[in-house]
């Protein structure tokens, strides 16, 4: 089962983890491993951050994340996938994104979780703008390393 949420409000990672554990239902105790990644707003030592503004393309965002999750289910034997991505103004230390994957096997859980993060980073229509304490606002530049990390999944089919 795939669950996608794009939301302003914070999420509880422990609660999301318990939702993934519910993939074990009654006699069907099939989960062997759960892999989770959360991304957080880091502060910038040289240019202190007031907040990070997350803009997105409503409608396309959900569609893009759903598509990425479906690709993961086609590539690996996963049980459940949960993706949460926040939008709006987030201060340093706040959670931005949650990706959780349950599977019978740890290889699949790890690979699907990392795949989703890598594809999300280069395909999901979010844009970050740093609002600094000194008043400057800087749009965050896309990183070549993110592009390279996304592309390595094309070779491993």
């Amino acid at each position, binding site marked *: 089962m795939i669950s996608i949420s794009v939301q302003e409000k914070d999420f509880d990672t422990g609660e999301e983890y318990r939702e993934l554990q519910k993939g074990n239902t009654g006699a069907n105790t099939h989960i062997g491993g759960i892999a989770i990644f959360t991304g957080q707003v880091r502060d910038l030592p040289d240019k202190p951050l007031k907040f990070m503004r997350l803009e997105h*393309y409503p409608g396309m965002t959900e569609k893009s994340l759903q598509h990425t999750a479906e690709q993961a289910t086609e590539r690996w034997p996963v049980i459940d996938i949960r993706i949460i991505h926040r939008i709006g103004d987030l201060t340093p230390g706040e959670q931005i994104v949650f990706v959780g994957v349950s599977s019978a096997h740890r290889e699949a859980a790890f690979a699907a979780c990392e795949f989703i993060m890598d594809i*999300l980073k280069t*395909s*999901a*229509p979010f844009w970050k703008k740093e609002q600094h304490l000194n008043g400057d606002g800087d749009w965050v530049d896309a990183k070549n390393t993110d592009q390279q990390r996304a592309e390595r999944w094309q070779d491993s089919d």
Partner: protein
Amino acid sequence: MKVLFFGSLREQLGTGELNAALPDGVETIGQLLAKLQTQGDEWKLALGTGNVLFAVNQDMVDENTAINDSDEVALFPPVTGG
């Protein structure tokens, strides 16, 4: 057609949405990008960077993708979520 702009593009252009008829002679989203740049210096500056991504009906596409008047088209800089 509806043309949406996001991120730094939206800010540079001072608009997030354009509603207009599909211009004559424009068949692909790459051609639309070129046409929009003829609207003035700020358009040329913002859209002429060679670093614009395209979506048609909320799917990421390449510049050769055909568009028509009923499509929702979006232009935006490389994404930076996660």
